[in-house]
């Protein structure tokens, strides 16, 4: 009977956030296949530890597990296979913002806007990419993002600010390449 309740509660509080979980995992792993694996593993973990969830925000709780799952098992292997780490020396902030805003604007007029936005976001360093994805794509509040990552709200804010600038730079950079 308690088991039945657990399953039903899990289905009501955690299962509905599958899309959020997948979207975050997909942006972290940058691969459909890996994202599915991360999400599945995260859900099994979430069910196993569901007793520790005492009400509150099911989505935040699940996203924190998705993120931990990714960082524990997937990140290291990914780092080696495809490192597209942002090189801050080559793309200094001043450099970027100087012609960034204008070029970014023009580039975005093109037909492949979406592809370029996605590419720029994919190239972002992961700690900025994840806050931008949670904020802009999943509409999480600063509080919720802070809870998922386990950082103060002030850090969420500064990462978002920095992330948006980096994003502008990458977009401008891609625009020049294209």
């Amino acid at each position, binding site marked *: 009977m308690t088991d039945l309740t657990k399953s039903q509660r899990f289905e009501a*509080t955690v299962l509905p956030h599958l*899309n959020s979980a997948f979207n975050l995992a997909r942006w972290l792993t940058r691969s459909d296949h890996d994202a599915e694996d991360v999400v599945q593993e995260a859900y099994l973990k979430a069910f196993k530890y569901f007793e520790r969830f005492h009400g509150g925000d099911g989505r935040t709780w699940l996203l924190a597990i998705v993120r931990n799952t990714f960082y524990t098992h997937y990140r290291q292997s990914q780092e080696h296979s495809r490192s597209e780490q942002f090189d801050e020396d080559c793309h200094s902030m001043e450099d970027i913002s100087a012609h960034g805003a204008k070029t970014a604007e023009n580039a975005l007029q093109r037909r492949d*806007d979406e592809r370029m936005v996605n590419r720029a976001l994919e190239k972002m360093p992961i700690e900025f990419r994840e806050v931008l994805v949670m904020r802009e794509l999943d509409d999480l509040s600063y509080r919720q993002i802070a809870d998922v990552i386990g950082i103060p709200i002030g850090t969420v804010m500064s990462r978002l600010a920095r992330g*948006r600038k980096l994003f502008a730079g990458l977009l401008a950079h891609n625009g020049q390449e294209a």
Partner: protein
Amino acid sequence: MDCKKVAELLPAYIDQELGVGELMGIDEHLQNCPDCRREHAAQRDLGAQIKARASYFTAPPHLEARLRASLPKSNAAAPRRWTMQWRAPWLHTGIAMACALVAAWSLGLYVMQPSAQERLAEEIVSDHVRSLQVDHLSDVASTDQHTVKPWFNGKLDFAPPVVDLATQGFPLVGGRLDYLDGHAVAALVYHVRQHPINLYVWPASSHDVASTQTRNGYHLMHWTAQGMNFWAISDCAASDVERFAQGLRVAVNEPT
């Protein structure tokens, strides 16, 4: 506010995460400072670009199926291997009896259709869960009963009793409109030790005896008083829900 401070707070300003004081400070600064205005527009547009153009990856349908399959199914007993031989003659009698039992049981299920009260309780559980899921607990967030009560004016054709039970450990945190059992209802939100309590109130046509029940891990309590239906639901301890209901009944009968 100076440019440095504004630059620091701009992201939170754009994401509507600031308090009224800081908000007004930045509003004022932006009106007078073209540089910060440009910076504000640039940052806001970048966020909007991502929101509008970056892909939101929804989970493929087979993933949900795979997840559901991999989660333990608690309501179905583990399938047992049927290793017995069909030759045993008594087995036929056994199977016939089992069939009869199943038939009788399903007839029982048919007779035991959920009552209106039970359906309502189920509706309340789903509504409670939904109000937490979508992060939409309150339309009017206030701990002041004199703010929450007038908020319902003109939104409902009745005046729900709104009382604060902070002194008894159940602070009022807000209210919202909701829809239950074919009525617009008042939903009042209280807290007890970080657990939200939803209290649904709407006019009653009959007088019901107070009842408690537990569904999906949530405790529900229902009673009628002063011509109103009351349903309280929370995931806190059952005793807390009862204490809450008790405190509320006293307070509603003796309005301050």
